[in-house]
């Protein structure tokens, strides 16, 4: 690794920036079949929360010119029954087969699809479908006493959800101060700007899908299974994705339904989900109730920790919001109990949403730490330092690279932590001012990834891998990695991603793509380099031991310089090498190692609260992160800005309301689901320590993105407490939560 790289770590602008800003980048719904026009499809969704479909009245549709076909469970087995979608070679958002039978499990379930010549006719026809139901009792309310409660063993990473060590009761006896409180977080939706969309094009038994997905390979395998075709016959293309945040991670029924409908009508079908469809079709973050108990001795050393999370799941989706996983890992504590339970409800399915578990979990844990510091009369940063550990509390392993104490120090210095006053004591004109902080952390994940490295006769390098850039900057990061290995500039590298026919890579989730491709690119570059050296030797050259540089259309090694056009035989256009890594980190079946891999950080927030209205503004947030080597300072910073903005939304605005009587989401639109606007975002100060973690991969990057909204909502809530002396234990914090008790 060249630590003085002219490429790695530099704030290089996105190589795909021009395409995106000029509208030349094509997203799933922008594509059209090579021949002809696609038919348009619109979903028919259930309006009841529980029951079965007894019939469809389609009489109004038949007279509609342009109406083509209505597809539903009555069409027989359009889709092969999927029993264990998460066990096989693919992961689905829901563990059921669309259109398999007449059962309805939640409002918004896909129960039919209208296909028509135009979108307008499809929309009108979908509205004209009359569905007859036989309703049955629905369990919608969170506290429904008849709801089944489950204690799942494992999260989808393989991590244990029920953790116990030492004796919590004994730890409580030792303590001088105990905090026991319940924190709640609301239903939240991902709301990417680009809605999910699928264009399915069949050619015989070959299927091409343009899909708004965070995982083309997973998508391919899932659809191939559901359509009973060889995965080799399915190609998923997703060159550009307009954000996902988790809702395009696993494959959801609509993709399969579009593929099935296209086969049924023997024409390409385009299905674009409406914003309202998005609220019930591809997951959300479920509501959580978290009881946290923290006990400490007089020095602030934790003697007992308990974190009990209650959440819910749908009847057909197994997502658990794993709030306590961070708690089991983060602070030194020998007596600990972490539990997760889910109620089975007639609600749409949950799914990972940016930092699943970590974001709501740290709201509870880091708020409780703040409460404990207050009780102990201790500075919140000091309390965290006292309980800092160099050992992963879950397994006793050392961290591969942990610099959290530096994050605390830098963050405290940058926000001006010394200005902090006792709760409710800092006034500036009509405003109450407060500072708060929280620890951030996120697991280091890596998945098996293969790459194809190519040199063409122009001396241009190509890197291909079936991963995707969901807006994070991966195109640029891949170009930088390859450029670094061959001593050239990123402009000399063409990046091919977003195509499941390329060598396989993981889905874009868990902030793991950069770390995953790092190992694969390193190996692929090594393989290409070896091939090229062998070729140079064949040609009668004697390349030295110096690294092979490919720049300006020539290959150089020490004094040797040979044009690429000479190196590459005239009967071929390019030299191709494949490489990769089968290693997994952070998931079941991972590499045996004596190290644990995690990223850490510290988030600080300053809030100002209008004393008369309780309006909360966040004039400044500081985030200092230890995420390993940063590959691109600009795109990395953008990720962190986005995550911290999410933090403001989570703390102060975001919430989906459900009607407990009908099971409907009440505010399924961006007009009523508030996320921060530009004017809500003020100064963000982001620093990354940039300390490489070469135990994790040859580029030393641990991956980043999600860590920046972990702890962010707690930092804001803690700052609100510091400003007002009012502890709000639910999110979002509303204006009227504060008004009654505000110090006037």
């Amino acid at each position, binding site marked *: 690794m060249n630590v003085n790289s002219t490429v790695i770590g530099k704030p290089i602008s996105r190589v795909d920036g021009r395409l995106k800003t000029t509208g030349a980048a094509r997203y799933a719904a922008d594509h059209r079949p090579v021949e002809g026009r696609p038919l348009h499809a619109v979903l028919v969704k259930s309006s009841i929360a529980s029951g079965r479909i007894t019939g469809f009245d389609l009489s109004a549709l038949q007279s*509609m*010119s342009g109406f083509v076909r209505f597809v539903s469970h009555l069409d027989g087995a359009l889709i092969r029954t999927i029993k264990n979608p998460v066990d096989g070679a693919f992961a689905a958002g829901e563990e059921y087969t669309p259109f398999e039978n007449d059962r309805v499990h939640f409002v918004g379930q896909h129960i039919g699809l209208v296909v028509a010549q135009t979108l*307008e*006719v499809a929309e009108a026809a979908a509205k004209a479908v009359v569905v007859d139901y036989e309703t049955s009792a629905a369990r919608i309310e969170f506290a429904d006493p008849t709801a089944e409660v489950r204690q799942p063993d494992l999260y989808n990473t393989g991590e244990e959800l029920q953790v116990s060590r030492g004796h919590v009761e004994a730890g409580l006896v030792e303590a001088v101060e105990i905090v026991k409180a319940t924190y709640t977080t609301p239903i939240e939706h991902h709301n990417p700007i680009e809605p999910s969309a699928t264009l399915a094009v069949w050619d015989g038994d070959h299927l091409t899908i343009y899909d708004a997905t965070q995982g083309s390979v997973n998508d391919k395998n899932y659809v191939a299974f559901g359509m009973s075709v060889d995965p080799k016959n399915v190609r998923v293309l997703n060159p550009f994705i307009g954000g996902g945040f988790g809702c395009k991670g696993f494959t959801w029924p609509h993709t399969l339904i579009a593929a099935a409908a296209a086969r049924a009508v023997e024409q390409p079908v385009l299905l674009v989900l409406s914003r309202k469809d998005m609220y019930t079709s591809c997951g959300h973050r479920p509501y959580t109730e978290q009881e946290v108990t923290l006990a400490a001795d007089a020095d602030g050393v934790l003697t007992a920790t308990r974190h009990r999370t209650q959440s819910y799941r749908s009847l057909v989706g197994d997502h658990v919001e794993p709030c306590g996983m961070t708690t089991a890992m983060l602070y030194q504590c020998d007596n600990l109990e972490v539990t997760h339970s889910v109620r089975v409800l007639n609600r749409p399915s949950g799914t990972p949403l940016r930092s699943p578990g970590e974001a709501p979990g740290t709201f509870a844990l880091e708020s409780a730490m703040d409460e404990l510091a207050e009780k102990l009369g201790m500075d919140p940063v000091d309390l965290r330092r006292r309980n800092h550990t160099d050992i992963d509390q879950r397994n006793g392993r050392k961290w591969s690279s942990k610099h959290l104490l530096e994050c605390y120090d830098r963050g405290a210095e940058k926000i001006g932590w010394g200005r902090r006053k006792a709760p409710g004591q800092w006034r500036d004109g009509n405003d109450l001012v407060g500072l708060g902080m929280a620890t951030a952390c996120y697991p280091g994940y890596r998945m098996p990834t293969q790459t194809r490295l190519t040199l063409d006769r122009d001396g241009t390098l190509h890197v291909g891998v079936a991963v995707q850039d969901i807006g994070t900057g991966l195109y640029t990061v891949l170009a930088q990695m390859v450029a670094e290995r061959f001593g050239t500039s990123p402009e000399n590298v063409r990046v091919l991603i977003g195509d499941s026919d390329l060598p396989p890579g993981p889905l874009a989730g868990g902030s793991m793509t950069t770390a995953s491709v790092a190992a694969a690119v390193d190996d692929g570059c090594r393989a290409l380099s070896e091939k090229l050296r062998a070729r140079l030797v064949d040609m009668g050259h004697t390349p030295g031991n110096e690294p092979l540089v490919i720049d300006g259309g020539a290959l150089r090694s020490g004094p040797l310089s040979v044009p690429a056009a000479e190196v590459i035989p005239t009967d071929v256009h390019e030299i191709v090498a494949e490489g990769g890594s089968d290693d997994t980190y952070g998931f079941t079946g991972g590499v045996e190692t004596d190290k644990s891999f995690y990223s850490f950080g510290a988030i600080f927030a300053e809030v100002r609260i209008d004393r*008369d*209205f309780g309006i909360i503004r966040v004039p400044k947030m500081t985030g200092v992160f230890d995420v390993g080597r940063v590959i691109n300072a600009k795109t990395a910073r953008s990720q962190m800005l986005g995550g911290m903005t999410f933090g403001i939304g989570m703390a102060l605005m975001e919430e989906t309301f459900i009607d407990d009587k009908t099971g409907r989401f009440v505010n399924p639109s961006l007009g009523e689901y508030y996320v921060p*606007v530009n004017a*809500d975002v003020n100064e963000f100060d982001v620093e990354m320590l940039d300390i490489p973690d070469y135990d994790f991969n040859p580029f030393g990057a641990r991956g980043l993105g999600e860590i920046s909204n972990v702890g962010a909502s707690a930092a804001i809530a803690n700052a609100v407490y510091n400003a007002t002396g009012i502890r709000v234990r639910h999110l979002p914090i509303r204006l*009227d939560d504060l008004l009654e008790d505000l110090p006037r």
Partner: protein
Amino acid sequence: MLPYYHSYTNDMEVDLAFERPDNLELALDALKTRAFRVIAGGTDVFPAVQQGQLPSAFLDVTRIAGLGGITRGDGTTRIGAATTWTDIVRAELPAAFDGLKEAAREVGSVQIQNAGTIAGNLCNASPAADGVPPLLALDARVEIASAARGTRVLALSQFIQGVRKTTLAEDELVTAVLIPDQALGTRSAFEKLGSRRYLVISICMTAANILLDAQGRIAQARVAVGSCSAVAQRLPALEADLLGKRLQDVTVSTAHLSPLSPIDDVRGSGTYRLDAAQEQCKRAILRAGAV
């Protein structure tokens, strides 16, 4: 983007009329013949169409000559019905209109302000319409025309009757909003509260028009609060109490707020809204009165 493109339903034999007359007489004649959904900027109509509420006939009033723009005369300032919020922001108007301008900048986003019109905001009759409180505080009148009965003018407070309800008959069109010159000497301010900084439905909003006499005493006061009742309300008891007071002596009591009946909803409780309204009134009055 014109809303009628969305209803491209020629194939479906849906009878969809779209009239775009260029003079008032044609528009009023059309309104005699059938029920039209009158449309100007379309910023409320278009989302409703997307929700499936597709009227069978539209009457676009944006091409009617003389329906846009702001003019003075006859003891009034006349704001044409099709005047956009951006037009209002950019117009040179006396300080009495500062509150209206501040509200204009808070109606949706800039894009909405470029399309949305003053009369559209009134006819839509949302309890949270940002345009209504400042117009109430300006003592605005609404000019209405019909082919059968000519022109009538009534107070804004009589025009809006409830949530999404106005006195407008099916054959009538709002042609202008009229501000009497009596308001001209006043200064004004607008306060808005929402759960984010911009692009937000108001939890509570207040407009005040204040005139101070030479001794610095309040000689004229009009205060109106929105989002705290089905229709935005003037606060007559407060206005009466303000007369003769110096700004530093201004107090707003809960009794002053008796015309308000805020509801609890997801954005804020009724109690909170009343608290906020009380403070907003004070701030709006002080800011309007400050030279």
